[in-house]
């Protein structure tokens, strides 16, 4: 089964994939950095990593990475609808990743909204979105790691997929 992760990656897809991986790595790292653990566990003592103990810096970079990801997701979704759907089909594991990512994005958007001046959420709802954002992110990262090891991609050629499915 040939997937987009295999030999058929175009130059554009390769570049976008790199941007996606970099943005995911940035948001994951700075996301964990929202917890006060990098100083405690000497990460910020590593030369060049002092910024990781600056909560304002990690928060800003987390927002920046999230902006890039939001742009990429919007591009991928519309590109799939307009062009990709004719040639490719989402794999079952892609649906799993999309559901988990949707959880991260929705709770993340709610958290950004909550941080705006004059926007207040109830304490219970704030705790819920904070913990579910972290939960979705951890499950996504674990799932993505397993799927990478299993060499399961996002897309498969539409015709081939139908044949394979039979």
């Amino acid at each position, binding site marked *: 089964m040939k997937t987009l992760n295999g030999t058929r990656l175009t130059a554009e897809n390769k570049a976008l994939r790199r941007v996606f991986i970099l943005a995911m790595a940035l948001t994951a790292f700075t996301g964990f950095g929202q917890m*006060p653990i990098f100083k405690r566990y000497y990460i910020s003592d590593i030369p060049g990593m002092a910024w990781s103990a600056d909560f304002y810096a990690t928060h800003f970079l987390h927002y920046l990475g999230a902006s890039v990801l939001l742009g990429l997701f919007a591009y991928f*979704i519309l590109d799939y609808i*307009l*062009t990709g759907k004719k040639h490719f089909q989402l794999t079952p594991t892609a649906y799993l990743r999309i559901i988990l990512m949707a959880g991260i994005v929705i709770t993340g958007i709610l958290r950004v909204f909550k*941080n705006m001046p004059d926007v207040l*959420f109830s304490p219970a709802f704030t*705790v819920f979105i904070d913990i579910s954002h972290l939960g979705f992110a951890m499950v996504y990262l674990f799932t993505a790691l397993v799927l990478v090891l299993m060499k399961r991609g996002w897309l498969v050629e539409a015709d081939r997929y139908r044949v394979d499915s039979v």
Partner: protein
Amino acid sequence: MDGKISRRSFIKGGLAVAGAAVASSLPMPEAVKASSVEELGTLIDVRKCIGCGACVEACKDVNEPKFPEPKKPFPKMYPNRVKVSDWSDKRDVDDRLTPYNWLYIQEATVTVNGKEETLTLPRRCMHCQNPPCADLCPWGAAYKLKNGITRINSDYCLGGSKCKNVCPWHIPQRQTGVGLYLDLLPAFAGNGVMYKCDRCYNRISKGKLPACIDVCPEDVQKIGPRDEILKEAHAIQKEIGGYIYGEKENGGTNTIYVSPVPFEDLNRAISKGPGRPNLKPKKDSMAQADNLAKAMVIAPIAGMAAAAAKFFVGAKKSMGSEDK
């Protein structure tokens, strides 16, 4: 006490807060709930404070049930750089902020109208309008109420001290050996609970005044809708040719000080350090993130525009090749 702003409008606001508190028991965004509660601000007139400490004592008395009762010995924490913060044997300390002292009196010997004078001023949490402690708390343990109070929920707080780190005045104070972290991974995560002034949210929800305001014999503090408090602060400022602190600091707070001398002078004269906040100007800590959050809306639009452009360019190309 002059009830013009404080009592009448305060009780009106307090009843509305009580109503909102009932509604807020549901886990849903308050932003979508119907509520007309205004942010309450406090006015601290530095001229009136005689430094008697009645507010400090009253704060300790009414908030005693909220104070930490840590279990000892404390669990060993790793790595070794994690320090225990224990104030449980120093509960009487009242010359700085501690987990058992949420308000204290600062002294400043300054020149007022050519005469040397010692001014005193109560210091506690400023209750910022856009509080970084609440915005950046990773667990939602710190949060702001619609009436302008910023609270730390001691049931959820893990004592990571991030709120203290990001607070422009480093107000919250940690007590080790208490709270949720003891039930999770006490050796490897968390370090107690953070404590600070909650502006007597529970008294306010019953229509009562915060204890420090209630007992003050000199009516140093007033509480009321923030815009009215600001109006009064500006009127005093104009009358005495004075200075204001808290209106614009950190993007605006709900604690407004009025002083007959510049706050730079007061800041130079006060004792500063851990648990003793300064009186420096503070830029809006959350401004950069708030601007980026607004810009975030553009990202998905740009992504969709790029995908649409790719589609139309592709369609044009294929039409061109068909024509040939």
